[in-house]
């Protein structure tokens, strides 16, 4: 830490020397001087001992590197009217910010930041408009040109299977494993079961489950004359009630139809999972013989090589008016765009009505209406992707590099309805084309946004939006960096220089040491936010009249809010430091920290990165201990990660045309918090640790800056 302090000192001295060389007082510094100041100071930061070693040789040239404070100035040159160094505890914002005139960077930075922010938001909103959206196209040759003739005609059989399944499901009160095994065997599959159990970290109140156990049933159709090296999966997740029984019926009817065909080159696994996604997760972990989430499950007896693609099916009735397709997976992962193209191809071929995010496809892209409708879909997809939750059973396959999507049958009040044959034909076509695949799906995009089924935005076109927002943080950091040196130089420049006799000039004492305390404290708060709610739920339930799930959510909120009280506790720790430079250094570090985090998030999950950047960046850039503090505080609170989540919930329901009242929104918010924590523990979703360990501490740093004493 002494090294850090010295480094800052060297930088300041450099600034002094440079301004002397420029031969001007503080009032008439030119832009060039600012640049020449900034460059050597950075070098001084990096190579301080080196600079000291070279000092005598370069002294006559007045090199910025060489002019360390004691060496460059002889004591005799100290003017007699030097004011005493500013008192350490006194906060002098004017001296820190406004007294040194603005350099080129400072004067340009603010308008540039505003422009950049506006450009980022505008770019994102423009993504739904034609120059930035492109038509989707099938890239994979193996699936492109060969059309298949669908022959599935087992609609009646599917309904029969569904009826039986529902009856057995009601009778057993759980997945009718024996019936499924028998039926799958009777249609000629090789049938296996897998039992699993999982104790959730705390009771899931929305689904009412805590100690979860279940049995997955899967049947493998072995391709003739193939060595079981590749396979496709058709999966139906079943919940506690028999809502998805039509999908099970269709799965069995499709299995019976597929079994009689000889063209299969890949094995096909027909998987029925219990307990929704938990069953899917248990099966996937057992199939890949890994244990990611602490699931206890029996090992699988039958396997069928590397899974190439998977389709999850959800049908609630035996007639559908439209098919909705979901692509967003765990942690915002997306399947290859070709799989979606394939689905769309067969929707068009079969004349099925397809929706994305529950929205109909706009037809007219030349006028404004189409893109505006596309923008709604795009925003919905961004919110869905940002949540990092699997939007269907397919979302869990993506971790294992299995391209997958979920097809949902929607039965609304629309006049024209399709029966199970139409859905079955679409699925048959998809599987036959996937059967043609020679390689994994890799030709098309893995990173995209969808304003409509037939339109997409590629990564090259949407990344600038996040880039513009992050540029704001960069500009602010640069401006702060400049100000930090001016602030350090300011008081000393005004009075010439401090001699070697004071133990340490106040400016030199602002090093990294002063940042350690707020950084550590905010990180510790984040850690507490991550660990304590789940760990301390039993303690909480003993002492307060709440259930476990409530305890977790309330502890989360309590710790979150307690973090806001931190500046009062940290200012004592850092009170010995120079306050004016302290908050600047802290904000600089916080800005860089935030920029790095957001950049990393935007690379892996663009929607999350963009949403967080769009909300956090302005408040982070404005956080400032002087000025209208309550206003800044309100802005900062409104853009904190939790408030963003709340806002996103309202926006989401608004876009779905089901607006929330405030009370409903709050209830949904509490449920979302619990779900977020559960998703992390049960599926390995990364949003909760990311917010608790990364963004919340970072946000606390800005809060700390705002209330700097």
């Amino acid at each position: 830490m002494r090294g850090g302090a010295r480094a800052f000192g060297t930088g300041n001295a450099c600034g002094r020397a440079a301004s002397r060389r420029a031969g001007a007082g503080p009032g008439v510094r030119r832009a060039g001087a600012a640049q020449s100041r900034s460059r050597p100071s950075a070098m001084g930061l990096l190579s301080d001992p080196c600079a000291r070693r070279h000092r005598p040789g370069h002294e006559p040239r007045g090199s910025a590197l060489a002019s360390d404070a004691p060496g460059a100035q002889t004591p005799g040159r100290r003017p007699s009217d030097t004011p005493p160094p500013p008192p350490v505890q006194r906060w002098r914002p004017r001296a820190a910010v406004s007294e040194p005139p603005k350099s080129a960077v400072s004067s340009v930075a603010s308008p540039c930041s505003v422009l950049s922010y506006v450009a980022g938001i505008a770019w994102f909103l423009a993504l739904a408009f034609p120059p930035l959206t492109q038509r989707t196209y099938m890239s994979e040759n193996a699936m492109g040109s060969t059309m298949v003739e669908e022959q599935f005609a087992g609609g009646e059989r599917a309904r029969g299977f569904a009826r039986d399944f529902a009856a057995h499901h009601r009778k057993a009160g759980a997945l009718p494993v024996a019936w499924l095994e028998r039926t799958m065997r009777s249609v000629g599959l090789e049938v296996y079961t897998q039992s699993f159990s999982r104790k959730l970290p705390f009771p899931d109140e929305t689904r009412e489950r805590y100690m979860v156990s279940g049995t997955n049933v899967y049947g493998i159709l072995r391709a003739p004359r193939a060595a079981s090296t590749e396979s496709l999966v058709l999966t139906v997740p079943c919940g506690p009630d028999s809502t998805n029984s039509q999908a099970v019926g269709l799965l069995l009817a499709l299995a019976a139809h597929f079994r009689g065909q000889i063209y299969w080159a890949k094995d096909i696994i027909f998987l029925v999972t219990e307990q929704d996604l938990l069953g899917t997760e248990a099966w996937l972990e057992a199939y890949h013989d890994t244990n990611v989430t602490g699931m206890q499950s029996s090992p699988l007896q039958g396997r069928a090589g590397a899974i190439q693609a998977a389709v999850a099916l959800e049908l609630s009735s035996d007639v559908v008016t439209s098919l909705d397709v979901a692509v967003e997976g765990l942690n915002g992962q997306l399947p290859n765009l070709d799989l979606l193209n394939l689905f769309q191809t067969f929707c068009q071929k079969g004349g099925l009505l397809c929706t994305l995010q529950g929205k109909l496809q706009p037809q007219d892209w030349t006028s404004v209406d189409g893109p505006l409708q596309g923008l709604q879909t795009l925003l919905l997809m961004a919110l869905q992707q940002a949540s990092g939750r699997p939007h269907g059973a397919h979302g869990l396959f993506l971790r294992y590099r299995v391209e997958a999507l979920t097809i949902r049958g929607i039965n609304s009040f629309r006049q024209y309805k399709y029966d199970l044959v139409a859905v079955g034909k679409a699925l048959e076509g998809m599987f036959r084309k996937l059967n043609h695949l020679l390689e994994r799906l890799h030709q098309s995009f893995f990173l995209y946004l969808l304003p409509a089924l037939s339109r997409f935005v590629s990564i090259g076109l949407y990344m600038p939006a996040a880039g513009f927002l992050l540029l704001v943080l960069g500009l602010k950091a640069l401006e702060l960096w400049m100000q930090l040196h001016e602030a350090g130089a300011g008081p000393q420049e005004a009075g010439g220089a401090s001699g070697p006799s004071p133990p340490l000039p106040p400016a030199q004492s602002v090093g990294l040491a002063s940042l350690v305390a707020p950084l550590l404290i905010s990180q510790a708060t984040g850690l507490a936010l991550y660990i304590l709610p789940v760990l301390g739920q039993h303690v909480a339930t003993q002492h307060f009249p709440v259930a476990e799930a409530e305890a977790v959510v309330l502890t989360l909120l309590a710790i979150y809010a307690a973090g806001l009280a931190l500046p009062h506790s940290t200012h004592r720790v850092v009170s010995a430091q120079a306050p004016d430079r302290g908050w600047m250094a802290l904000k600089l570090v916080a800005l860089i920290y935030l920029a790095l985090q957001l950049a990393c998030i935007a690379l892996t999950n663009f929607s999350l990165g963009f949403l967080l950047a769009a909300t956090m960046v302005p408040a982070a850039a404005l956080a400032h201990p002087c000025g209208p503090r309550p206003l800044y505080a309100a802005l900062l609170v409104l853009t904190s990660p939790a408030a963003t989540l709340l806002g996103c919930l309202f926006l989401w329901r608004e876009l779905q045309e089901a607006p929330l009242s405030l009370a409903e929104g709050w209830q949904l918010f509490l449920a979302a918090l619990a779900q977020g924590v559960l998703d992390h523990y049960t599926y390995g979703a990364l949003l909760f640790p990311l917010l608790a360990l990364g963004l919340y501490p970072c946000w606390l740093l800005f809060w700390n800056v705002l209330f700097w004493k």
Partner: protein
Amino acid sequence: MAVALPLVLLVLLLSGRVGGGHAEPPRDSLREELVITPLPSGDVAATFQFRTRWDSELQREEGLSMLLKADRLFHTSYHSQAVHIRPVCGNARCTSISWELRQTLSVVFDAFVTGQGKKDWSLFRMFSRTLTEPCPLASESRVYVDITGYNQDNETLEVNPRPTTTYQDVILGARKTYAVYDLLDTAVINNSRNLNVQLKWKSPPENEAPPVPFLYAQRYVSGYGLQSGELNTLLYNTHPYRAFPVLLLDTVPWYLRLYVHTLTITSKGKDNKPSYVHYQPAQDRLQPHLLEMLIQLPANSATKVSIQFERALLKWTEYTPDPNHGFYVSPSVISALVPSTVAAKPVDWEESPLFKSLYPVSDSSSYFVRLYTEPLLVSLPTPDFSMPYNAICLTCTVVAVCYGSFYNLLTRTFHIEEPSTGGLAKRLANLIRRARGVPPL
């Protein structure tokens, strides 16, 4: 597993060694056989064998070869053909040599598809033909049907027509009963002008567990991501009371870097120490890993052999044209002497049926089995070949254009050409001057 089983079984069938002949066979004989056996997966395997002398007539249109109809045979789950030619004694004192030709065709019928959802089968359903007459050239023409567990008052199985003779033998350590239909026996065909062997299950066979072989194996890759993974081989010994050793041979390509210290073998939850391990490490681009182990399989157990690996980065020219398909890892080879439940009798090769030669017998108490597990498909970290391809094309074009012009510039010798000044008059003048011996203008 179920597909592997018939495969393994048939590989075994085909790799069986041909027994040496002791007694002198009848000269110029053609023996033909059709053997129909159920498989553990529920499918039905049919094996044709024709044995004759090389010099005898090979054209056959009747007999068992009537059943060989391409569109049915290629509609099956599996088929395999083999031809064996060997020298045999030409006469009793072995003073001359003649050649024996043996043709084998093994077909696995998908019993579910051919039987319309039932396990029943008949010759007509499988081949869409029936047998009408024996081959006139054949000295022996028989159909064997595996009816193990069938007796006259059995309620589960019905064989039609009723077999007149049966043949019992010990095959792969178990006693098997075959119904024999001799086509040369006039009673077999003349009763109904054709022979359509049918087998029906009276009680639904679903509630009974399918017969499982004593030794079978599975193999899979575990883990996810493109950095590391694990190769797992599961070895099942279903023998109720006998433990036996197996020799497990793995050859793994060099681009999967095996960590041999992670080799773990567990049986029934306990560590199983192999009695012999031979490991030959891979050399990049030269030789694969070779790992050979002798493992004792406890009775009625599943043994898991796992070893971790890391995926290597290949050079970009080393990828196959379809790199995203993944790379194949060859099957493990498992060789074992599996203890029999029934002692086998010494075999008289010439007198026993032809198919007997497909099942080798090592001694009376055990039989030899070699299993191949399924191959694995492992995806390696693969660069996006579309981008390098474009980049390479572009750079090659640029380099070619630049290089060509630069090379042209650098290697061309420049010399100043004499301007061909002057017209006809000057040339004429020079001609005259040359003629005069005076230097030209």
